């Protein structure tokens, strides 16, 4: 079973072979490293950019305007906060020219905590990303979705932001989460597509498996665990957290439905609505800071449209509103949702008597 980072790499390969990707670029994206997380090893069109995030986004916009198909990377989303104006412009290109120009670029960037990244390698970007009108925003939680969402992002005529939950990059898929065409055997796959450390890295060439196309539709959620009592709406790293908490809750007889949103914009409102109408209780979970948070948008819409369906106050479980995520485990754990936090929210919500 491929890991998420292998899945991304395979999608980029398919993207450049079959779907017109012309450039995969960013800091340390080209040889010899192939990305801070190995995500671009062996990609033919990959190249190293100057250390300049504004330049990276600007280059991607320019390439996209000129009919190329760029996949650009910001090495950590923590370093994209000086590019919000350019991201807004990319999202506005089609609209402000009233349909004259298109800007089909993909911007990928690792997000979130869970690797002890301290203050400036632990940021989330969902609040920022969902504020960018004109962009589509996706965030996979497993290798198969990572593969299929990347291919959908690549062929999309709009700018698409691809948020990579960094804590999940090395996690393997569960059964059913295969990349179509990957060899069954992990070791075999690794031998084919993982660049051996050390040695002359710029000489190495991957041997790609025969990969099939898979387009996970942007805008479609996935019910990763059906349940009857409480709905959790989440994405990325917190899907696994929520599933863990749901397992625990099941022991007490609480049956939690977990929705992996996968696309943050446009998002699958039907999936949320259907689930809330069934469970009547809902918790929104994400890692971003809790003031002016995307989960608050989902919660607001739920309240506006489904007020009388709710048998308990809807809840947000999110990151704390502090200037950063501290390095010490004690600090990181206190700053972003953990399994225990989610479980506590489930229990409170499930136990609520209307």
């Amino acid at each position: 079973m491929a890991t998420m980072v292998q899945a991304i790499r395979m999608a980029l390969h398919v993207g450049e072979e079959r779907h017109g990707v012309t450039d995969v670029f960013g800091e340390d994206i080209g040889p010899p490293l192939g990305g801070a997380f190995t995500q671009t090893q062996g990609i033919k069109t990959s190249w190293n950019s100057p250390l300049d995030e504004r330049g990276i986004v600007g280059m991607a916009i320019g390439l996209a305007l000129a009919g190329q198909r760029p996949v650009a990377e910001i090495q950590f989303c923590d370093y994209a906060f000086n590019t919000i104006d350019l991201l807004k412009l990319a999202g506005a290109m089609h609209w402000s020219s009233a349909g004259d120009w298109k800007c089909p670029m993909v911007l990928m960037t690792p997000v979130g905590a869970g690797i002890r990244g301290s203050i400036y390698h632990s940021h989330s970007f969902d609040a920022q990303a969902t504020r960018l009108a004109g962009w589509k925003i996706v965030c996979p939680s497993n290798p198969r979705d990572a593969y299929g969402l990347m291919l959908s992002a690549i062929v999309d005529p709009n700018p698409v932001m691809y948020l990579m939950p960094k804590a999940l990059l090395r996690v393997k898929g569960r059964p059913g989460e295969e990349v179509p065409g990957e060899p069954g055997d992990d070791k075999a796959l690794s031998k084919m597509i993982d660049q051996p450390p050390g040695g002359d890295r710029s000489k190495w060439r991957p041997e790609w498996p025969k990969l099939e196309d898979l387009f996970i539709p942007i805008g479609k959620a996935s019910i990763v665990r059906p349940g009857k009592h409480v709905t959790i709406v989440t994405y990325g790293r917190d899907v696994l957290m929520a599933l863990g908490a749901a397992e625990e809750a099941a022991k007490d007889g609480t049956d939690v439905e977990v929705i992996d949103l996968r696309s943050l914009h446009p998002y699958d409102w039907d999936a949320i609505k259907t689930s809330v109408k069934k469970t009547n209780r809902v918790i929104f979970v994400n890692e971003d800071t809790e003031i002016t948070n995307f989960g608050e948008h989902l919660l607001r819409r739920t309240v506006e449209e489904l007020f009388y369906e709710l048998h308990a106050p809807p809840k947000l479980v999110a990151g704390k509103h502090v200037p950063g995520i501290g390095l010490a485990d004690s600090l990181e754990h206190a700053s972003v949702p953990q399994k225990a936090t989610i479980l506590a929210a489930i229990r409170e919500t499930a136990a609520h008597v209307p």
Partner: protein
Amino acid sequence: MTATLTPEKKNGSHKELSPELLLQMHDTMVKARVLEERLITMYKQGDGYFWIGGPGEEAFGVPLGMLVQKGHGPEYDYLHLHYRGSPTIMAMGADPVDSLRQMKNTASDPYSRGRNFCCHYSIEKWNVVPVSSPIEVQYSMAPGTALANKRALGGKGTGITIVTGGDAGTAEGDFATCLIWSSRKGHELPVLIIVTNNLYGISTPYEGQHGETKISDRGKPFGMQTLTVDGNDPEVSYQALAAAMDYVRTERKPFLLEVMVSRLYGHSSASGANFVANETDCLAKFEQKLIDRKLITRERADTIRATYNQELLDASKKVREEPQPKPESIWDHVFADTAGNGAPKGSS
């Protein structure tokens, strides 16, 4: 600062310009000037909310537009202009009436359907990328289209990228980004980086804000060809642009060109949009030169101006009657495909 041409120029671009070319240049300069004056009048008469434009830059902007390799796609030139680009767009052959439409923010405005300020052009079929308000962002995007230019026709293309912006704006990091990304050794890009220096940013004089004597010097550490010229003289501008473009087209390397220009009606309507007497009027000067050289008569020049004037006055009356955009049109073109279009809350 006086006009000097680089020692690097080639192809004998210093040869005299033909009378036909000079007259064509003059005609378009008049047209561009009359357009700007019409836009200002519309603003003053309440037929628009805001004016910003390029009167005083015709002697540079018109030659630029004439020299553009106009077309669609990376075999042709890309233009990343700022809000003073009307002379260039007119020289490329755009209809001035469309500029009035944008001024009046009508639904018929082809550049933004009533969304954007006047002189914020967008012409996909001619590679004119959308002009946006934030100063200098175009300099970060220009290397992207330039890389596409470089790849076009298997590397044999002659299309280049042209980016313009003002003097004050060069303080933004994006200007440095453009210098850096276009001059990487072994990865040089065919981009003509232009700075139109009118010695002001709104109310703030050049003096006291710049450590560099000439902005064009900023290209030097990057091994770039650089030049500063008098943009108030269309012959000098034309020659300089031709030489610089020729270099960029042929060598596929960047060139930094600083053009000294006038701000003939001040910064924008926010500062009154009144004629500034102590700035050089490139059109008046050029006209006099053509008259002195007997290439045109005063009467003929006046007729040209009067004709454009009447045309645009008539057009402005018509434009006034054209419909405004519909409120619900705010949802149009959010996405290039159907997803999310018309969906107020971002649902699929």
